[in-house]
């Protein structure tokens, strides 16, 4: 039986954790589009889910080759959204991690940190611009509309910043590990 859940995540790690908790209860993700998750009921714990950020859009030749590779390796791509993809693998085949050595983990986290940094930075720029416009327009006796608009961007910055920092920390920790281990 299929059913839908509407939910919004800013943090892909929390999202991945939630998907795995759902899978443990026998609810397996089969489709996703913005805020809308489609689950199918099945055997509890049958699949392990992983979310990854691709370097290119899923429709590009590079990404198609990568997704085909995954499918040949026993990993299904259940959904994609912009550059994000949702992979799953049968839990019976053992642990499922996309990356198994320090170097590839570092480049995986760097890719995501850059993505978060770019979106966060853009929102920060828009937020500052709106505050600036709001202040200069408002001072003439008009409304401070732009300042109110900027709140949305400030919220996004506030949500993305901790994620950005946690990724930078992860990269730093792994780089330290690399001095001692492979």
């Amino acid at each position, binding site marked *: 039986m299929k059913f839908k859940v509407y939910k919004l995540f800013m943090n892909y790690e929390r999202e991945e954790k939630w998907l795995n908790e759902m899978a443990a209860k026998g609810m397996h993700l089969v489709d996703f589009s913005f805020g809308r998750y489609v689950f199918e009921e099945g055997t509890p714990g049958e699949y392990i889910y992983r979310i*990854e950020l691709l370097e290119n859009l899923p429709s590009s030749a590079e990404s198609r080759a*990568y997704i085909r*590779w*995954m499918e*040949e*390796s*026993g*990993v299904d791509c259940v959904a994609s959204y912009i550059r994000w993809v949702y992979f799953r693998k049968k839990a019976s085949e*053992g*642990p499922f*991690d*996309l*990356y*198994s*050595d320090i*170097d*590839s983990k570092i*480049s*995986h986290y760097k890719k995501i940190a850059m993505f978060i940094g770019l979106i966060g930075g853009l929102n920060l720029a828009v937020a500052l611009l709106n505050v600036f416009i709001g202040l200069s327009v408002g001072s003439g006796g008009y409304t401070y509309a732009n300042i109110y608009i900027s709140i949305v961007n400030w919220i996004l910055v506030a949500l993305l910043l901790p994620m950005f920092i946690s990724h930078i920390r992860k990269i730093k920790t792994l780089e330290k590990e690399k001095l001692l281990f*492979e």
Partner: protein
Amino acid sequence: MPPKDQNALTEGVYYILIALHTPLHGYGIMQFVKEVSDERVNLGPGTLYGAINTMLEKNWIVATATDADTRKKEYVITDVGREVVQTEMKRLEELLENGRKITGVESDEV
């Protein structure tokens, strides 16, 4: 020819190169490495994908004809790749020998 001062291989790359002494596709490599390392080394598909592409660029491995039944691409080690493995084995032997000599501990005592 691999350079004399060849850097240490990652254990994943080392095992992939050993695996490819017989032609295998990606999934086959993962299974082989898992089996031969007694499930200790579990290659992530993302890591393996990156490693294979880099090794293809370096000509350590080549893609052979695609498997007719499964349509999966198979890879095999080249002469350059074999030399890389042999250089690495010499390096590992040196490490092990010096470790044994100095600590006086044989591997079966650990």
